[in-house]
């Protein structure tokens, strides 16, 4: 049986003047606790009893709104070094997402995804399942005390190379992009249950029917304009895995286990900026995932569409239809539609 339909929303982008990791984490936390979306509609996140203190949420958000807390203790920089979030839709798998980065990596032992280098002022992203209370992200096993953690993959290069941050959220996943509005360079990552195995078979799906994972574009390269057909790390294709450290990664947990399996885009796809339906609508072609041999699942309400500028929205009349995630804020590139 298919997983529930997700409803993606875009948070208001935030320009970052302090372009250290903590500056971006400040921005992400500000976005994650906002009470309105980019389109001005109401957003209702949950709460923590004492923000900044490690704990589980006192309440969860509603609709698509995640609930975020921050960690300004780990690495003792006096600034935020992590934010961590909980989805509004929880299942017995207790997923949680962490976005982390620090100016000082002294004593760093955090769990890496594909041995991604532990560097200062790089943003990292990871997904946990069967998680418990957050303790510290500088932990060789998990930031969330118990359960399984993907490890932290690089969702950016050095943060000083970016100027703005985008975030989209839905009931069970979150996507972040860091963007340089001058050069057009973009990096980012996705985390959560954004792939539907389309099967309840225990070999294909967790006990809640989902797959949990993380995808990052890596620290070595920016997303390339043709990222939906790219397989080379030089184009940092989101949702396409490379095993090499600091390059792009795309994995999900093996159902029922803490091990990871490659979950890459299936097929090489080359839409253009003329790729429209006959009435001008944006096409919504399902995006599939495989481990380069076996079928993994279908991305949830993440559709291949015409080339677009990242961070833009598509609406018909007054009706929002979705948000466009591409590889540049200033040029049309391969893009996916995050359906409203």
């Amino acid at each position, binding site marked *: 049986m298919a997983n529930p339909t997700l409803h993606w929303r875009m948070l208001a982008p935030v320009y970052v003047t302090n372009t250290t990791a903590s500056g971006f984490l400040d921005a992400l936390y500000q976005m994650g606790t906002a009470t309105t979306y980019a389109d001005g509609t109401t957003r209702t996140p949950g709460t923590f009893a004492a923000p900044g203190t490690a704990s589980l949420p006192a309440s969860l958000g509603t609709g698509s709104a995640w609930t975020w807390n921050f960690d300004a203790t780990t690495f003792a920089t006096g600034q935020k070094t992590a934010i961590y979030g909980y989805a509004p839709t929880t299942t017995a798998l207790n997923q949680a997402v962490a976005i982390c980065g620090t100016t000082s990596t002294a004593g760093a032992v955090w769990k890496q995804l594909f041995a991604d280098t532990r560097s200062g002022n790089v943003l990292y992203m990871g997904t946990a399942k069967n998680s418990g209370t957050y303790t510290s992200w500088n932990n060789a096993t998990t930031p969330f005390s118990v359960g399984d953690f993907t490890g932290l993959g690089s969702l950016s290069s050095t943060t000083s190379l970016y100027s703005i941050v985008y975030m989209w959220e839905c009931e069970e996943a979150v996507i972040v992009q860091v963007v340089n509005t001058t050069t057009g360079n973009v990096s980012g990552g996705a985390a959560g249950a954004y792939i539907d195995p389309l099967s309840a*078979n225990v*070999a294909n799906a967790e006990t809640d029917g989902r797959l949990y994972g993380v995808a990052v574009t890596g620290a070595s390269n920016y997303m390339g304009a043709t990222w939906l057909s790219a397989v080379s790390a030089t184009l940092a294709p989101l949702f396409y895995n490379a095993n090499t450290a600091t390059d792009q990664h795309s994995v999900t947990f093996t159902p029922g286990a803490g091990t990871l399996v490659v979950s890459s885009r299936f*097929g090489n796809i080359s839409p253009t900026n003329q790729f429209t339906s*006959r009435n001008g609508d944006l096409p919504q072609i399902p995006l599939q995932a495989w481990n380069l041999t076996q*079928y993994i699942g279908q991305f949830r309400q993440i559709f291949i569409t015409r080339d677009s500028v990242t961070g833009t929205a598509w609406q018909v009349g007054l009706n929002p239809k979705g948000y466009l995630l591409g590889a540049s804020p200033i040029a049309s590139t391969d893009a996916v539609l995050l359906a409203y």
Partner: protein
Amino acid sequence: MALPTQKWRALAPVNLAANTLPDALNALHTAGTAVTYADGSARVPGTDSAWTWGRDTSSGANQASFALPPTLGYAPAAGTVLGQALMWCGSSTAAPTGMVAYAYPPAQVDAKTQNMMYCGCVKNTTGIYIAGAWNTAAPFTTGQSTGFARAFVLPVTAIWNRVYMWECPEAIIVAFAQTGPSIATSWSGGGAIGDPGISGLGETDGRIYGVFTSGSNNYNQSNMWANTGDAAFYEAGIAGQSRFGCFIPGSATISGYNRFGAYAPATTFLSRGGEVPLVPVYCTGSLTASLPAPIRLREVWLSRDGIAGQVLSNGGVTLGYVAGANALTTAADAAVLTV
């Protein structure tokens, strides 16, 4: 509104009496007039998925085998959808003269030659065929034709000895096959094969009608889901290569259609639980004036590699049929046609 789900059925493969064009056309007619399916179940032409076939032997040897869609059972009732016909035709004695050859783009006209089989789709037709009309501009008394595309590698070059056919209420897929030494196939077919996603983007009945062949220059390639020159569901834009043209709704003009994306599955392309994945196949138009206007091939799924004629079943329940780019022995890129 979504179009009705198509229920595909596999006809019993028919062996050609000889490797000639008339025998190939006769084999199609034989397959299409059978009263049982490959699995032994009853087939009633005109009902459910079963098309009604005729042929043209007015000049002696068969020169055209044509099919009209069912209108009873779960098939759309007459008058609720556009009238359509599919026809395979050609002459073993002379090159066609009056037949309208498939041309896309207009300068790339499939050559009309002796012993070549052609395939085309006609829409808005009452289905009335007059003897000899296949070799005219109007093979049926009414309707518009896609033009007729070269539908197989010329006999002799190919040792055609078997035809596979799959039918659903609104479309047909044919694979001419060799059982040795080559196991390559040539594909052709068409009908209301495309779902534009929103009915308002199709013809007045919401469908997209068209024709496809894998061409005559080469066989349907074993990597057909990635191939861009000689593969089913891919308009190469070159005469003699693979063709896939669909009518622009409300007009007699066709746009070439290309499979959207390149894929390289193998026999190992299963879910981790061993299930056969069913990945929808989308195609996009290449005629600038009509926009890409993507369509989904109706219940034609990209899946693991397979062999033409295989059946996909689970616990004795048939789930679909395998239309593979290869016949016999070696699995290759394949479509699963679900029941």
